């Protein structure tokens, strides 16, 4: 483990602890939903970090196709993997929140469906990489899929505006000011920063491991 990774890991750990304290110690109990609303401090940052991760896949894929830089390919691979982890957390925590709030674990709502499609597309991306033995070909095909898959990100985000959905509209990434009170916003932002740091730590580690794997197999 490099010293930069170690520092990032510790900072991410501290961030997660701060996020936990904010979610349970500082943010008040929400008046309508009760304490189950505290799940939002996981659910919302998880999808925002997944957007970030898949955005990085898009940019790194374009860079790879442009100049065949192996580093960009490794970054795309690592970011897709970590993005899938955060999307799975978003889907699972959303279902757990949905049961007491909506009365169901799952519904074929436009937001839920488009997020699930995004999850499956990036799983297919990882599967594609694993299935093709020739590394250069796998990287090229994955880069194309990484670019096409990114089209689903705006579809996920704007689905709540384009279709009539059970899922509420965005609370943080919305035009104008947020309707939430400051303690809720603060708790959400602290958790978001912690998740971004954790994303950075995981991606840095995974990129280094991918480089080592390629050196060992060479």
């Amino acid at each position, binding site marked *: 483990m490099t010293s930069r990774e170690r520092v990032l890991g510790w900072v991410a750990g501290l961030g997660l602890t701060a996020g936990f304290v904010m979610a349970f110690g500082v943010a008040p109990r929400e008046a309508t939903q009760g304490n189950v609303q505290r799940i939002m401090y996981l659910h919302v940052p998880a999808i925002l970090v997944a957007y970030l991760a898949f955005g990085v896949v898009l940019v790194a894929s374009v860079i790879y196709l442009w100049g065949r830089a192996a580093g960009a390919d490794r970054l795309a691979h690592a970011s897709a993997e970590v993005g899938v982890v955060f999307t799975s957390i978003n889907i699972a925590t959303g279902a757990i929140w949905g049961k007491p709030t909506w009365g169901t674990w799952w519904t074929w709502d436009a937001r839920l469906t488009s997020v699930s499609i995004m999850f499956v597309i990036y799983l297919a991306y990882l599967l594609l990489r694993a299935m093709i033995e020739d590394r250069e070909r796998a990287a090229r095909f994955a880069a194309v899929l990484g670019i096409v898959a990114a089209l689903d990100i705006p579809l996920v985000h704007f689905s709540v505006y384009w279709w009539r959905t059970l899922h509420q509209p965005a609370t943080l990434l919305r035009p104008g000011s947020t309707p939430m009170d400051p303690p809720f916003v603060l708790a959400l932002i602290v958790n978001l920063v912690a998740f971004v740091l954790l994303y950075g730590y*995981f991606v840095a580690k995974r990129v280094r491991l991918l480089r080592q794997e390629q050196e060992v197999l060479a």
Partner: protein
Amino acid sequence: MPDNWSFVLAAYGLAALVLGGYWRRLLRRERELAARERRRGAARDEPRPAHAPPGPPIPRR
């Protein structure tokens, strides 16, 4: 609305499991690669014999 602490606990527990599981997977892969690298290094550093041992005599016709 009831507080539904069990749902809150389940959500946080599941997230911890997923993130912890992924972290452990990375650590395991790191250890595997380090071990493989050590084995490769040891194989490289192993002294090779100066010349091949003599084989059986070739029968003359």
